[in-house]
């Protein structure tokens, strides 16, 4: 699981990190927070997208090997939320990359986030099946970010 703070107010980030603490302990489901998109299967995104961090978000998404799932967290991640009308905000995460699971709330509760992640894991299985049917036998060369 990779967590990317895409311009959130930090409310959702704190709730996301709370999932790792002893109280919620998301490692029960075998999920750990990694800092490396190349090791991640689930991309958690909090906050709104703007023209600047859009490139970073797309780059992170591209660096994750298939199959992968994306979870958008908080009202901001879903639609732009309270910042929707700001001049620099493009809207929700799904304006830039395909989103598989939406977790609402402002901020989203840790229970809801864990629910979303577990749902994402289920969806991951489905995507994996589809992926293994169409898996290319050749190696893919990763584009190195400029």
């Amino acid at each position, binding site marked *: 699981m990779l967590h990317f703070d895409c311009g959130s107010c930090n409310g959702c980030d704190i709730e996301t990190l709370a999932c790792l603490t*002893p109280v919620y*302990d998301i*490692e*029960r*489901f*075998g999920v750990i*927070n*990694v*800092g*490396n998109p*190349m*090791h991640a*299967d689930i991309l958690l995104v909090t906050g709104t997208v703007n023209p600047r961090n859009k490139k970073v978000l797309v780059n992170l998404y591209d660096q994750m*090997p*298939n*199959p992968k799932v994306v979870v958008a967290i908080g009202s901001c991640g879903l639609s732009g939320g309270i910042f929707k009308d700001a001049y620099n905000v493009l809207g929700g995460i799904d304006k830039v990359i395909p989103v598989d699971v939406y977790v609402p709330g402002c901020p989203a509760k840790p229970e809801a986030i864990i629910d979303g992640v577990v749902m994402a894991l289920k969806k991951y299985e489905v995507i*994996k099946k589809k*992926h*293994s049917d169409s*898996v*290319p036998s050749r*190696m*893919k*060369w*990763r584009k*190195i970010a400029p």
Partner: protein
Amino acid sequence: MRETLLAIFIGLFATPLLGGLINGLDRIITARLQGRIGPPVWQPFYDVIKLLSKEKMVVNVWQAFCAYAYLSAAAISVVLFFLKSDLLLILFIQAVGAVFVVIGALSSTSPFSQVGAHRELLQILSYEPLLILVVAGIYLEIGSFKIDDIYAWGQPLIFKLPFLFIALGYALTIKLRKSPFDLSTSHHGHQEIVKGVLTDYSGPFLALIEIGHWYDIILILGLCSLFWATGWIGMIILVAITYFIEILIDNVTARMTWRWMIGYVWAMGLTLSIVNLIWINLA
């Protein structure tokens, strides 16, 4: 002949299973020590199976080659261990594997891989002398590098080589990538240099490295077990206690810098080993 085949079979197939299981138990115990519940025991296997089913993505083809080379070197050294071969040979093959991981990481241009690779080299530099000294100590005591002869030796080596066993503990901590020596992959501090040497390995290649790491765990724990080679029960208890202490150390210490690591490991490890070697020579 049948025994040889059995040893090869155990070395190749049973050790990764055991290594993964140890890894799973390690994660559970660590979680319990931190007041969490932790993942299922089989989680490392789920992870590796998942990684194997992912898309192959490489920065350049050398990475794939290095991952395979590491896995084969690790597997060969473990098989040789089960064949009761020469300890020095085993150590050098294991070192070749460790260097291949570094080469693979250096073949990418990512700064995180590069920093991680350099740190990994420094780690190898810190623990290899200790491993060689441990083997030298065993040689001085029983007059042979062969594991066969160690098993034939009448009494547990740990009474004669207690300081060398502690020195081996340092090497074990570094090799297991445990705190305070988890510099190269920043195992707990993943925001620091992302994942260090492992940053650019992904999908199936990461799985290969992980399986190689399981082989490595078993090899080093096997080295520990040689210190109580007279009976199975003593062997297992010694290894279990050592590993539990490793987990404790991992949980109570913070990550240090590489300068501290080299200074400390060399000062402590080499002193302990040399004191022990002098002791054997005098006795």
